[in-house]
């Protein structure tokens, strides 16, 4: 009993540690005072004004554009790559996986700098270079999410479909896709998360004109953060929270349904006795 209680307290402390700063930011977003330490009463005005502030909105739309474009493109390239890598022989597979691990394991600062050195040689830094950098560090997450699903599925179902006369495209759509869908989806989600949260690599590849929320915050830190940014971040966080919650409940339901089906099959199996 005591052990149980200790465990619960430990869990609570860790999650408090993880979520306390978020709580602080949410509280600040409702603070009527511009000060970060004095509570000036409840207000919603920052939620209204954040959508009219030009610099904030520009950084916000840039962030959204980069996040969505990088996540979509990296999911596409990464999923195709995962299928290709899965079909490779052991040696090539190992080489490709090694290359995949480079941006994942290398220091962000080195990845950012090395890309900057490349980009400035051929073009000006800007939206496109940030996008390329984001796609580069996103792809590994997609591949590492999709590959296990492919291994789980095995090769035989796809080949069975071809054997039964399906075209490769049809076989992919009908057989492979349903098996890897959840992996592709979580890869996409990881890509969105990583893009949204990135600072270092964007910082080195963005050039002068472009700003994402992270890089804008970095420059604003010196002058003091405008409360509108707390409001906008709170909106983003709550949006993600709801989205992930809905997805979790949904997948829970499908899991329950699958379990029920299992149980059903189980009773059928028992029939012969």
């Amino acid at each position, binding site marked *: 009993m005591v052990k149980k209680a200790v465990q619960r307290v430990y869990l609570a402390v860790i999650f408090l540690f993880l979520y306390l700063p978020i709580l602080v930011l949410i509280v600040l977003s409702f603070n009527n005072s511009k000060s970060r330490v004095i509570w000036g009463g409840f207000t919603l005005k920052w939620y209204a004004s954040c959508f009219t502030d030009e610099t904030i909105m520009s950084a916000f739309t840039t962030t959204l554009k980069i996040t969505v474009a990088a996540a979509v493109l990296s999911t596409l390239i990464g999923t195709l790559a995962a299928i290709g890598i899965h079909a490779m022989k052991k040696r090539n597979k190992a080489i490709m996986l090694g290359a995949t691990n480079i941006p994942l394991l290398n220091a962000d600062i080195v990845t950012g700098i090395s890309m900057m050195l490349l980009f400035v040689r051929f073009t000006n830094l800007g939206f496109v270079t940030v996008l390329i950098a984001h796609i580069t560090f996103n792809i590994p997450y997609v591949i590492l999410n999709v590959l296990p699903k492919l291994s789980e599925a095995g090769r035989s179902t796809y080949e069975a479909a071809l054997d039964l006369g399906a075209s490769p495209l049809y076989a992919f759509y009908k057989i492979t896709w349903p098996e890897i869908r959840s992996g592709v989806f979580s890869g996409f989600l990881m890509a969105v998360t990583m893009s949204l949260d990135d600072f270092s690599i964007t910082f080195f590849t963005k050039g002068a004109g472009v700003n994402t929320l992270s890089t804008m915050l970095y420059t604003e830190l010196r002058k003091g953060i405008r409360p509108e940014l707390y409001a906008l971040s709170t909106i983003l966080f709550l949006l993600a929270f709801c989205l992930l919650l809905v997805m979790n409940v949904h997948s829970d339901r499908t899991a329950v349904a699958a379990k029920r089906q299992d149980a059903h099959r*189980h009773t059928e*199996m*028992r*029939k*012969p*006795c």
Partner: protein
Amino acid sequence: MSKKLINFVNITKAFGDNVVLDDLNLYIRENEFITLLGPSGCGKTTTLRILGGFETPDRGQVIFDGKDITALPPNERNLNTVFQKYALFPHMSIAENIAFGLKIKKKSKEYIDDKIRYALKLVNLDGFERRSVDSLSGGQQQRIAIARAIVNEPKVLLLDEPLGALDLKLRQDMQYELIRLKNELGITFVYVTHDQEEALTMSDTIVVMNQGYIQQIGTPEMIYNEPVNAFVADFIGDSNIIDGVMVKDRVVSILGTKIPCVDEGFGCNRPVDVVIRPEDVEIVKPEDGFMEGDITSVIFKGVHYEIEILANGFEWLVHTTQLYTVGAHVGIYVIPFNIQIMNKPESEDEEAVETDL
């Protein structure tokens, strides 16, 4: 008779709403090879896990060697388990796997090395000490799992469907190995399986279970030749199970025909189950049998032919070494001694089983 080593007293266990064991009572004698046999979900594995200490019963006691061990954790029980999927430690060598229990008991290195050699010899895997777990086949892994358990010299060895993951030939070989091991070690084996052939081959005693209840306890011969109810008859080997009416002593009516049997004491005009083993059905000329029918299928099974005869609306299953052709009109005869009469099940649970058949 040797003494009772283990006693299950009024054991009840439920998972949520699902009652897996309902007031189970069972004793196990010293040096016995006892098999818990039944379909999946019958409670046999739960019984074993309660004995191993991995589950605690909701009610009841487990008495081991005169002591109540119901609340004792697994690591303090003087028995060892061989798991269904071997459960070898993947990060250890074979020798380290086998030495695991002995090291915990702080035995000397010489003692442990001796034991490892002895155990490997016993399971016919001499010289495997340094091999890794994943370099072994399923059968070899299972032998190591057995070796790992028996070096601890348990009084009782629990085996949870240990041959379930092996292929047929290997399974049969392992059955002989287990019998040999049991005789060499002279300890109690508690064996769980859903495979009736395994149970019949190896056991001294078979406990047939279904839906948390014990259906019958007896020697393999008793269980096979004199099943107490239709469930046991059907689960142990193939059977023709026919609704019948006991007209009077030594006469039973099935499928509209009165035939002689040897059973007495069922009363008059009582509904009964009539069980006839397929190898006991004789195919004779139409006029010589007590019933006429047509052969609907003939399948060669190696040792015998499996023949189905449609007679009086019932599909008779017959095992015979003689070849017949499909469509032949034949007679059916069974000598009275081979006709088993059983009371219809009375409890509701047994009824449920009955409709499932």
